[in-house]
């Protein structure tokens, strides 16, 4: 792949990226969240089309036209969220869409042949799975093998694995590595995307590092070491740049008062791990970590959305009973969720209706809404947050991502939250709105709230937070105070 570029509205996802892989080679593709790994691989898989650049396969320039096109070129992708149909059996999933048929006018399914072929494929990768087993009864590791068998069934010459070990134990991961070595020996080219740097040290022949949609460097087998990878991932220049930023506003002489305490909370995603954090009044605490570190799950458990298996949440030293989002909101704990369109705004409803949603009763008498008072309040908040909309009665759907986020924020602002948690608040938000959201986050802290900022954007974390907690696999691996919090130190804790 040569000079691949891709822009999405508002962002340059890939800026002239080169990538190549040879037969029988395992290349790791590494980078922070949002560095462009997924976009690059989606271009190879035919999901996205590059804006410019060329893709050559065995020397010939090709155009990959949709996922079907990728399959024809022998390119198979195994995504992190395995795409399996639970109700079908193993053989059915392997041959989904390409089922062997019987001769004859009805072209009925040839179950026997399908199962026989499935058995052959599975035994080639040493997987002892019966083709009739229902996929829903397989472990994640076994499903992974089924996905690989599916890739083999289309004679994949290039196999792309996205975070294949994200939900595997170490034993299963090692078995997977065995299979991958086997495939490499047979000449398959394998692209291995992972955040787990230790694995890359073990398995990769080469590591290509992306940063901010550009090539940051390539390490050969002998050069692959964790510290060098981290260095390339975060870039050398960042450290000096951020060290000069404003220091935490140290409240002189005044003892810091804990506002929000998360005490030994376990979430459904990591049921065996406890996480504890303390957020002080007027502080912005960042939570950094890689995707899947359990940050969102922790925030949702605190806010009564996701299950909290054990542990306590204290506000101003008082333990709270929080079973539903409503409980959290009534206690002054608010969440700006990550999935803005799915969980933040109600897109088809107006700016006004979205802003007043949790607090509508405040404008009502006998259950009936005083629309004038409601509109006045909504208008004031929208103006205060500089929401760019032609009127407060337009559907939130029509606004840009940044303005939608401001609407969600405005909803909570009116309630005067004592603690507010932001989950990736500036994802997909343009630069201008991003700065405004950062200003609002700081303002909330200055007004005395305890603010939690979950972000995968290291620059944002370093620039906007007073302290940074880093999570990995559900655990808080460290809390960094201002002078020590640099992209390098955060990344070291995040990859654990």
């Amino acid at each position, binding site marked *: 792949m040569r000079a691949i570029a891709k822009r999405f509205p508002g962002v340059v996802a890939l800026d002239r990226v080169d990538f190549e892989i040879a037969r029988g080679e395992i290349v790791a593709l590494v980078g922070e969240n949002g560095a462009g790994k997924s976009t690059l691989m989606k271009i190879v898989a035919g999901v996205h089309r590059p804006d410019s650049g060329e893709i050559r396969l065995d020397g010939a320039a090709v155009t990959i036209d949709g996922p079907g096109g990728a399959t024809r070129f022998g390119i198979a992708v195994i995504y992190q969220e395995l795409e399996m149909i639970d109700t079908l059996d193993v053989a059915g999933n392997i041959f989904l869409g390409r089922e062997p048929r019987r001769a004859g006018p009805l072209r009925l399914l040839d179950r026997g042949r399908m199962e026989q072929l499935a058995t052959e494929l599975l035994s080639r990768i040493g997987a002892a799975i019966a083709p009739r087993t229902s996929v829903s009864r397989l472990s994640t590791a076994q499903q992974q093998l089924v996905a690989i068998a599916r890739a083999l069934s289309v004679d994949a010459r290039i196999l792309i694995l996205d975070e294949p070990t994200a939900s595997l134990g170490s034993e299963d991961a090692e078995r997977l590595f065995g299979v991958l070595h086997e495939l490499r020996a047979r000449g398959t080219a394998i692209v291995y995307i992972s955040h787990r740097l230790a694995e890359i040290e073990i398995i990769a022949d080469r590591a290509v590092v992306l940063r901010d949609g550009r090539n940051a460097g390539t390490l050969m087998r002998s050069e692959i070491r964790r510290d060098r990878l981290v260095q390339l991932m975060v870039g050398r220049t960042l450290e000096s740049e951020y060290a000069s930023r404003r220091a935490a506003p140290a409240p002189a002489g005044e003892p810091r008062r804990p506002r929000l305490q998360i005490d030994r909370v376990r979430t459904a995603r990591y049921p065996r791990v406890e996480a504890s954090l303390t957020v002080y009044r007027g502080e912005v605490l960042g939570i950094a970590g890689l995707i899947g570190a359990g940050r969102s799950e922790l925030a949702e458990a605190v806010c009564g*959305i996701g299950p909290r298996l054990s542990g306590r949440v204290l506000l101003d030293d008082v333990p709270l009973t929080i079973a*539903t*989002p*409503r409980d959290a909101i009534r206690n002054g704990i608010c969440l700006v969720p990550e999935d803005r369109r*799915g*969980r*933040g705004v*109600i897109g088809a*409803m107006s700016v006004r209706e979205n802003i007043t949603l949790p607090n509508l009763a405040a404008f009502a008498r006998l259950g009936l809404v005083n*629309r004038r008072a409601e509109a006045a309040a909504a208008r004031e908040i929208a103006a205060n947050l500089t929401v760019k909309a032609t009127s407060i009665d337009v559907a939130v759907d029509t606004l840009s991502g940044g303005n939608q986020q401001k609407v969600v924020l405005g909803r909570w602002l009116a309630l005067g939250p004592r603690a507010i948690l932001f989950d990736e608040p500036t994802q997909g938000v343009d630069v201008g709105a991003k700065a405004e959201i950062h200003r609002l986050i700081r303002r909330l802290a200055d007004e005395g709230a305890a603010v939690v900022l979950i972000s995968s954007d290291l620059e944002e974390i370093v620039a906007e937070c007073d302290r940074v907690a880093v999570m990995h696999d559900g655990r808080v691996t460290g809390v960094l105070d201002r002078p020590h919090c640099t992209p390098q130190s955060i990344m070291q804790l995040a990859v654990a």
Partner: protein
Amino acid sequence: MTRKDAVIALLLTVLCAVMALASPQFLSVPNLQNVSRLVGTYGIFSIGVGFVIVTGGIDLSVGSMCALLGVLLSMMLVEWHWPATVALAAALIIGAGLGAAHGVLVTRLRLQPFIVTLCGLLLYRGAARYIARDSTKGFGTGEGFEWVRLLASGSLGGVPMPFVLLGIVAVAAWLLLHRSVFGRHLVAIGRNEEAARYAGIRTKAVVAWAYVISGALTAVSAIIIAFYTNSISPASHGNFYELYAIAAAVVGGCSLRGGEGSIAGIVMGAALLQVLRNLVNLLDIPGSLDFAVMGAVILLGAMADQIVAWRSRGAER
């Protein structure tokens, strides 16, 4: 008035104009009274089902519930000699209670609304037939509760009582759906239940209340229908009423996906269905075709609406 309300109002006006031209009887006072009585009766439970549809659910139990409540009313008044007020109150409470049961099953046990209310449809029909021993029930001459009969067959200044009641119910429902906190929450849930929950709305309670409203309004209609027909044969009384309600709601602009719907639209939808039935009557179309005519007109309307929507979206591009 929303675009959809305007479209259905236009459709209804055109249909009435065509009817008036095609049959001089259409605008006669007895015919208008007859049609408006039916609109009132059907409109009330259609509004109830509309609340459920706005949450993204469905209520299929309406017709059977009418039969069960009709049978019970007759027995309470005629056989057990309960005071009329007590009997009416009991019918309303039973209707609301069954609705509450649906709501709890849908929100707490997370059963699909279609399944819950389909089982209701079967259960209440069976219960009605069993209680009545499959024999037709009525109210005889109705001594002692004549005033109740007036709710069904009486009129106020020439306007049939059921239509007057529909007016009262519609105004209350309009306030509830379009002007109250509850209504806003209901629409929010229908649009995006997940986001509504994140905003701190008690989604389960709100959805359950929609089923209670549906059950209670069905009971109101059931009382009117029982006294109007004065003959409740438990095997057929109220058959297909749930489909009239769903059709009225959909014609009136509700989306079965939830989050969309207006009370004015539902009332006009219910009216449209009854005018169509009247059309079959007055134009001497064989009565056996009345469902087919309704089906065809609704289908044509839905197709036209979709095509117009595509066109206008295409024009924006």
